[in-house]
């Protein structure tokens, strides 16, 4: 079990520096090294927003989160696969694939987030026939006996496919152990989010983002240590407090905003106190029970204790969008920023409904679109700056 990744007494800048290096590394060197350490190791990639990483971990494999190529990857081949009116993430993901950057990945999971990712699963099957590819469906019915049974069986199928890939069954005890490990990781993620909501000047959004991104590529045990060390280190460091307003950032659950965009928001006077980035790292909102049937536990946790997002059906009209209102209240936020990838159906179709709910709750908001390779931050900075100023004006400070 890893106890320290950065050495005891790591400084904030050392930890963040490491996370930044992982973020910058488009060849996934760390994951490659992890795999190279033993001939029986396998790596399973997954796309946003949620896969049960516990199953991959229990099979002794490394779950590797893939969220596109960002603004540093030059997309040359990927554009030949997509029309201009489709978002960026599938084309940069294809670029990662065809340029060999994912050639060490043994399997790919494509969660049911939207039709683009769905169709990408079929493309991956055709383009990389040696890779295990699964479209990972989740239930849109939340009754135990209906959606729960269906999902448990889907988990059985995934578990068995992973077992076949490694050549031996995945046991319940292995699964229980993995659930324990991920519960711990999620607890730390929640602690980090809670800490940021309390003292956003201590934990800039860009740092939190980099730490969460590290969680996509590091073995979970190492990531847990990283989070723990970061929390300990930031508590010790006094950082200047600005007169920023507090906002919830939403719509950023799939294609990633450029790091500069996140930094720009803070520079423009907005502390991000909650967001829907890297939902996979905190999809389950409470600990998943260890006792009993582990797959059933994961299924029930999905049904009853998971994040709300555009890719999930909300059966109850009165509940629609309330997660956002609750996030605002929980974090004492003063407004919401809708940042949606261009051409993103889930984010953009959901947005008007969420905005109606916010209006009813008297919560101010602004909205803009971005692409993972957006370069010009000036307009966004201006919009966010005006928003921050108007919030301060409304609140009379």
């Amino acid at each position, binding site marked *: 079990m890893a106890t320290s990744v950065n050495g005891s007494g790591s400084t904030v800048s050392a930890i963040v520096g490491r996370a930044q290096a992982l973020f910058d590394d488009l060849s996934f060197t760390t994951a490659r090294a992890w795999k190279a350490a033993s001939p029986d190791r396998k790596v399973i990639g997954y796309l946003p927003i949620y896969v049960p990483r516990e199953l991959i971990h229990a099979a002794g494999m490394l779950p590797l989160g893939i969220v596109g190529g960002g603004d540093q990857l030059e997309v040359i081949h990927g554009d030949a696969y997509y029309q201009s009116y489709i978002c960026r993430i599938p084309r940069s993901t294809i670029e990662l694939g065809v340029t060999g950057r994912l050639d060490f990945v043994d399997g790919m999971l494509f969660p049911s987030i939207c039709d683009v990712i769905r169709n990408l699963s*079929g493309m991956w099957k055709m383009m990389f026939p040696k890779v295990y590819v699964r479209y990972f469906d989740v239930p849109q019915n939340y009754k135990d006996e209906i959606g729960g*049974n269906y999902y448990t069986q889907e988990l059985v199928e995934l578990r068995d496919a992973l077992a076949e890939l490694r050549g031996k069954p995945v046991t319940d005890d292995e699964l229980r152990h993995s659930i324990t490990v991920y519960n711990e990781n999620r607890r730390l993620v929640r602690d980090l989010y809670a800490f940021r909501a309390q003292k956003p000047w201590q934990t800039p959004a860009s740092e939190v983002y980099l730490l969460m991104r590290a969680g996509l590529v590091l073995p979970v045990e190492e990531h847990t240590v990283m989070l723990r060390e970061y929390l300990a280190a930031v508590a010790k460091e006094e950082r200047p407090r600005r007169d920023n307003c507090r906002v919830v950032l939403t719509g950023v659950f799939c294609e990633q905003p450029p790091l500069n965009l996140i930094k720009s928001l803070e520079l423009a006077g907005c502390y991000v106190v909650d967001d829907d980035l890297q939902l996979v790292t905190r999809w389950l909102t409470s600990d998943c029970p260890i006792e009993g049937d582990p797959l059933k536990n994961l299924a029930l946790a999905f049904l009853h204790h998971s994040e709300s997002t555009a890719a999930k059906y909300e059966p109850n009209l009165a509940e629609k969008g309330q997660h956002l209102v609750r996030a605002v209240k929980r974090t004492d936020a003063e407004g919401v920023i809708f940042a949606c990838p261009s051409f993103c*159906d889930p984010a953009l*179709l959901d947005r*008007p409904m969420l905005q109606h709910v916010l209006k009813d709750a008297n919560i101010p908001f602004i909205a803009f679109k971005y692409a993972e390779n957006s370069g010009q931050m000036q307009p966004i900075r201006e919009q966010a700056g005006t928003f921050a100023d108007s919030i301060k004006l409304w609140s009379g400070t």
Partner: protein
Amino acid sequence: MTVIVAPKAAPAKSVAKDDSMLKQKEMMAAHFDRLTSSGETGAKVCNTFVPGNLNELIMCFDLLNNLPEVNAIQSGLRRQSGAYVLEAEKIGHSEDVCTYVKSDIGMMAKGNIGPNGKRMPDPNVLLLSYTGCFTFMKWFELLREQYKCETIMLHTPYMGDGKITPNMIQYMVKQLKEEVIPTLERVSGVKFDIDRLREYLKRSVKAEDDLVKVLQAAKTKPSPIDAYFGGIYYIGPMFGAFRGTEDAVEYYKFLRAEVEDRVAKGLGPVTPDGDMGKEKYRLVVEGPPNYTNFRQFWKMFYDEGAVVVASSYTKVGGVYDLGFRHDPDNPLETLAEYCLGVYTNRNLPQRIDMLANYIDEYEADGLLINSIKSCNSFSAGQLLIMREVEKRTGKPAAFVESDLVDPRYFSAANIKNRLESYFQMIEQKRAGASAAA
């Protein structure tokens, strides 16, 4: 995506008198009248989608089936969708999303006037048959917000691995038994009778058999039908509010007889300008059409002697030509299987297989893709589809872009240019082939 139904753009010449055409026109007009007079008659209305349209089940509860995609198509054909889309954008909908949704929402905002000039009814229930398109879920969440009516989610898992598993069927049947049927009973006040469903399904099978014969008649040379532009009319009753009715059985019987008659006489398809001239190119088309300039688009084909012999769009409401038939002996399972199998619920390799097979079976000259700007379900992946089909069949493929109901994205000159070069490409290929022979 979906299907046009009312033959509004009725063929100008003798064809307007075809039995099937008249019959369909009457059927559609009667259906819109039933919908717009539901306020007086007290009939209750169920909105649902074309892919995964459970018309037989809906009829078991005496509910009227209202398909918002069909309404959007009607708005497109009547050139009103442009204003509706703008209206929706004005009230906060993004320019990037599916224009069917925006046409529907804009139409609602502007008084919800149907094709017969009367107000369309508010739904009593939204049956969110979530099949093959992510947008459906948001669309009905948006409508639910507006109408505040009962909404039922019926989740169809995606055929990611190209097969239907027992788990998928069980999941769907359970949803039908425990969610869909009880809610429809409650909303309608009508008790579910499985034998009534069986009877409707028996009728569906008859109509399905005849529809398949019609579609497969395009294997003849010359093809007696256009299986895309014309095909859209043919699938109207089947994909809309008529599957399972006697009207549909009769319509498809007439239609089949007419098409067989054309085959016997060696005739080509009927177009809005009358009989098509000599068949010069046989095409397979992938993707929905454009509705705002439907006739203009079609004309670009028939003017050049190009006929579409098979299309994927005419399979969005069921892939009957690959063998699926509703099974009255297993009524709920068959509804599940139907939803699972529709074209947009098939994975990309399956779509490629289907298109490549069409090219072989229908002896087509190649594949044409009409990529719809605002439809991710169809469009994401089409460039790979194009290359794969080309590779497999050795036949040329081409790509044009437009939108379903947003006139801003129909560029006639561009499309015409592309088509012309495509036809030249086919000629060159032929010349090459005969030189090599």
